[in-house]
């Protein structure tokens, strides 16, 4: 890995200048995710549009740079997707951080900037940080598909 590797400019830009780190008063659903062992705490917010697609996504909470940047990239990526497409992206991210999908074209195509977190698959202690937002999103969308209530929580 290069000197700062994972902590590259793309990731650090999401840490310093996050796009989606804010509350969402008109959210359709919110879901909290925590990593008890690291103390990462994120709440993901989504607003579904009339066309059934994700119209807006944001996150709030505290944690390490990896969990926060990953949440920012995840919420960037979700906008415009149907819940099914969003869950497919979450599944692809999960495969990437578990080291099961390494094809850069597939990752770039499916995850856009979040593909820069590929090297986390070689840092097992940090996988939980990276996947927290994606797991939380996936849980929230699964709950929604089941007709679940607005607010809920996931423990990684």
């Amino acid at each position, binding site marked *: 890995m290069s*000197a700062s590797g994972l902590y590259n400019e793309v990731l650090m830009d999401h840490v310093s200048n996050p796009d989606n780190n804010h509350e969402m008063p008109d959210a359709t659903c919110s879901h909290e995710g925590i990593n008890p062992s690291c103390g990462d705490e994120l709440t993901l917010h989504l607003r579904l549009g009339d066309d059934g697609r994700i119209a807006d996504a944001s996150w709030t909470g505290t944690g*390490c740079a990896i969990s926060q940047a990953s949440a920012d990239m995840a919420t960037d990526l979700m906008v415009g997707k149907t819940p099914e497409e969003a869950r497919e992206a979450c599944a692809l991210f999960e495969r990437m951080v578990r080291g099961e999908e390494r094809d850069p074209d597939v990752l770039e195509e499916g995850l856009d900037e979040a593909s820069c977190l590929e090297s986390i698959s070689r840092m097992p202690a940090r996988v939980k940080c990276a996947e927290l937002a994606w797991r939380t999103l996936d849980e929230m969308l699964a709950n929604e598909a089941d007709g679940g209530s607005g607010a809920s929580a996931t423990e990684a």
Partner: protein
Amino acid sequence: MATMDMTAFADIQKNPAKEDFPLLVGNPGLAFLDSAATAQRPAVVLDAQRRFYETMNANPLRGLYRLSVEATQAIEDARAHVAAHIGGGAGSQVVFTRNASESLNICAKDFGASVLRPGDEVVISIMEHHSNLIPWQQVCRATGAKLVYLRPEPDGTVTDESIERAIGPKTRIVSMTQVSNVLGVEVPIAKVAAHAHAVGATMIVDACQSVPHMHVDAKAMGADLMAFSAHKMGGPMGIGVLWGKPEILDAMPPFLTGGEMIDSVTETDAVWAPVPQKFEAGTQDAAGIYAFDAALAYLEGIGVDAIEARERALAARLCERLEAIPYVTVYGPAEPERHVGSVAFNVDGIHPHDVASLLDMQDVAIRAGHHCAQPLLTWMGGINATCRASVAFYNDASDIDKLVEGLEFVWRTFHHER
């Protein structure tokens, strides 16, 4: 090991011991600053482990042939050596376990469960490792005893007042770490033990972070039972020690039962073997115990006093260098010389896991997290995690320089000053 140049050993700019450690020789660029989690092993320990299997391998205790007798003798020699290393006493006072956690579980769930009555109090400090905390939570719940915390000063200093507040007429057991695995601060065990004994309580000491770094005399400081592990002192992983006063160990029931811990068995009953075999059901890691013996011999070959002096100088320098960085907060005693091995710290606004990952990219190995001491971190003001750098005698000043340079890199990474 060639004869150590002790003048060089006393100088933290030099590092004559490093060549004895194959992992450090094989990773010349590595600054290993996580010895509080586990120490590196000298070649003599690795050689001993191999020698056991090559020259004396047989199941100890039961065999009536030469090899088994030698294997048994290897364990008994190690037992006597461990006893001598912590202040003397008979080898039979040394029980080998799998790790210090198991030793402390025996203290709580065997000794504690057999003596605690509803309303009794167990005193531990807020600085305990989870290994000396959760077993007491469990046994207190099971027996109706109350768990009482000794709360030191904010920097971890255990004062006379804090001891007097915590230990009282209802105290039945006091179980305390001698050195905090987070703050590196030393607890005055002799004072705590004197208070414990004055009210008729039993004194248990978690010596995991003290025995590797200083002279510990279990009996002189008033320990009744004491736990520590081999792997933090250059021995193999998977070997723990439970040391105890003979009358206490004799009165305790066995913890695990089965092979090698009985004198005789009938269809309905069994007679336990004497201490220490009573506590050592099943086949022991005889090779590991033999290698632990070699680790003690290695440490004593250098000299525990010389090791203690070098490590105090290293820890003090580590603390001073960290305290001098404006964006670093150091926890524990402000006096650098009061840190035994470990220094906990945080970098302003940067999560400890990010600090550790970025340091790793600079070949600097530290620990980050809650250090199995979550109640301590909560008590320190709701801190979720800290970084912790810890030193051993095979470190030198350049390892600390690398850490400081690494922290500058961490800071630059987060502040766009590439």
